[in-house]
């Protein structure tokens, strides 16, 4: 066994995993506040990347300005999605809510492909391709940057949930009827959580696009995001971060051992297996709240 290779795979895997948890954090934010499992997070990630690209290539804005503008646009889009599509479905059976987010997924993905075309384009955000040397280990700079941003965003959220608005959101996620009755505007809180999820999606979109280019495959991050969110517990941001780390390491190491055996593409299989095992053994995830059901 080659320990250096194993360590390198593990470290790169954990960095990738932290980037997965960026996608998962968006899902968790929305699920926490409104119990809506957002299956459109993958295509929101993709849309964010496309909007950044549109600002920088169409209007010639420098990339940092494009990212800021795209973040603001996605903030608005998140609020619009909640207002138009999800608010009217509050209290409906979960199948309708799931189908709504799936419909949004299709609409956003196909819509952005219709507008901007499906050809893959690079997203130059100024991270060099040279590996980072950590002793004998080679670390991918883009992954390292993505993981750092994921941790920073988690830190920002941890701080945000201590502010007044953050406390309001926590109250909503605890019990929205109670929150309502003490005068909290639940609708505005839910809208805010959609907006924040869209912003996180933009950040995730930019970082992932800098790794793999802007194309349809960004929407496939949904499976990873959902796996991480479920593994961490659907309503725990810290859980998402840790589960991302865990999934990244397991996926990286299992992938590197299974790929030669199974002829490639075993990472998606590992994801699906992790998702199934999590749901079968511990449906509420590592840190999620355990739901008690009444008859």
């Amino acid at each position: 066994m080659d320990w250096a290779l194993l360590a390198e795979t593990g470290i790169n895997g954990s960095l990738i995993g932290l980037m997965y948890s960026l996608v998962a954090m968006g899902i968790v934010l929305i699920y926490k506040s409104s119990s809506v499992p957002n299956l459109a997070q993958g295509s929101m990630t993709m849309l964010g990347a496309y909007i950044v690209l549109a600002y920088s290539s169409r209007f010639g804005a420098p990339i940092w300005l494009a990212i800021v503008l795209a973040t603001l646009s996605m903030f608005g889009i998140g609020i619009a999605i909640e207002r138009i599509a999800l608010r009217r479905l509050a209290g409906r059976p979960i199948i309708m809510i799931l189908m709504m987010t799936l419909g949004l997924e299709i609409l956003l993905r196909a819509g952005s492909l219709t507008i901007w075309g499906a050809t893959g384009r690079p997203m130059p955000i100024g991270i060099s391709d040279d590996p980072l040397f950590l002793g004998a280990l080679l670390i991918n700079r883009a992954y390292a940057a993505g993981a750092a941003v994921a941790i920073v965003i988690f830190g920002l959220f941890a701080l945000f949930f201590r502010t007044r608005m953050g406390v309001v959101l926590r109250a909503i996620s605890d019990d929205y009827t109670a929150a309502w009755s003490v005068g909290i505007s639940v609708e505005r809180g839910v809208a805010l959580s959609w907006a924040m999820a869209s912003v996180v999606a933009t950040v995730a979109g930019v970082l992932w696009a800098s790794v793999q280019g802007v194309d349809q495959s960004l929407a496939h991050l949904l499976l990873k995001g959902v796996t991480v969110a479920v593994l961490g517990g659907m309503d725990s941001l810290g859980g998402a971060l840790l589960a991302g780390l865990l999934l990244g390491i397991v996926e990286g190491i299992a992938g590197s051992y299974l790929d030669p055996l199974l002829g490639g593409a075993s990472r998606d299989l590992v994801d699906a297996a992790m998702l199934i095992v999590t749901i079968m053994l511990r449906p509420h995830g590592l840190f999620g709240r355990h739901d008690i059901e009444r008859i």
Partner: protein
Amino acid sequence: MFFRQAGVYHTNYVADRALFPVAADRWIIAMILALGVAAPFLFSSLYLSSYLLPWLVWTAGALGLNLILGWAGQFHLGYAAIMGIGAYATVHANRFGVPWEFSIVIGGVSAAVIGSCFAFAALRVKGLYLALSTLALQFVMDWTISHVPAISGGTQATLQAPDIRVLGQPIVSDAGLYYVALVWCVLVTLFMLNLRRTALGRALVAVREKDFAAAVIGVNSFYFKLVAFSTSSFIGGVSGAILIGTFYHAVTPEQFSVDVSIQVLAMVIVISWGAARFGFSLSIEALAHLPQALYGALIISFLLVEPLGLGKIYKNVRDYLLVWPFGYVKK
């Protein structure tokens, strides 16, 4: 109006259990069936084989999914994988030399056996987590189908399906293939329509409404979930086999990818979630021909405007016309 009834009032149990309590429904169904039988003489061959035929097969598939989703209330985001298993098993059995009539049964049974695995997920979890685990199982099945050469013949391979033969007669004409699909669709529709009148149907509804409560009144909810999953997988498997035999004529892994699962789910939503009454006449294979974005928009607008689907729209119109022009009469 042609419904000519001021409300529905039953004076005996036979009338209450009738398949179509409103006579006009019976006539509409009969007319649609007659139209279906006469279709090869009415429509051009292109229209017949590229629109009507897949429409019928997808309707059968969507009705099978409706058994789980609408009747038993369990999620299934992996229905395309089930159809794919049926299709592959049928094609392999057929190529091995088994007559086509038996190979579709083999396809259906193998889909039912593997589909029952989904029921074990349903035993453990429900709601969102069941949806996600069936989605994950769809990915696993996709991966298995495309990566095991013994099943698909390799990642990029296309497996040619032999021409179908019924009772030794090769069926090659467009009309013949259409009638095969029509017979299957009518069989599934009859089964689904009659489900309401059986103990099985009532047990499934009890499980759907609340599985703990069903257990309290003596309905073994796990058993009925298992029955629902395996029956619906059987229907799905045979539908997949017929789709390959009559429409695609060759089978590839992409025909049964996760997107197809979502499309079948969308069909069930748009037709009428939970009510199979007019599923026979209303399906939305046309969706496959719309650009994808419009298709997403269609799902969203249905959920916003009429979440109970086309079936509910028909029912609203019928209930209005039943007592027209005396709209104030209680229905």
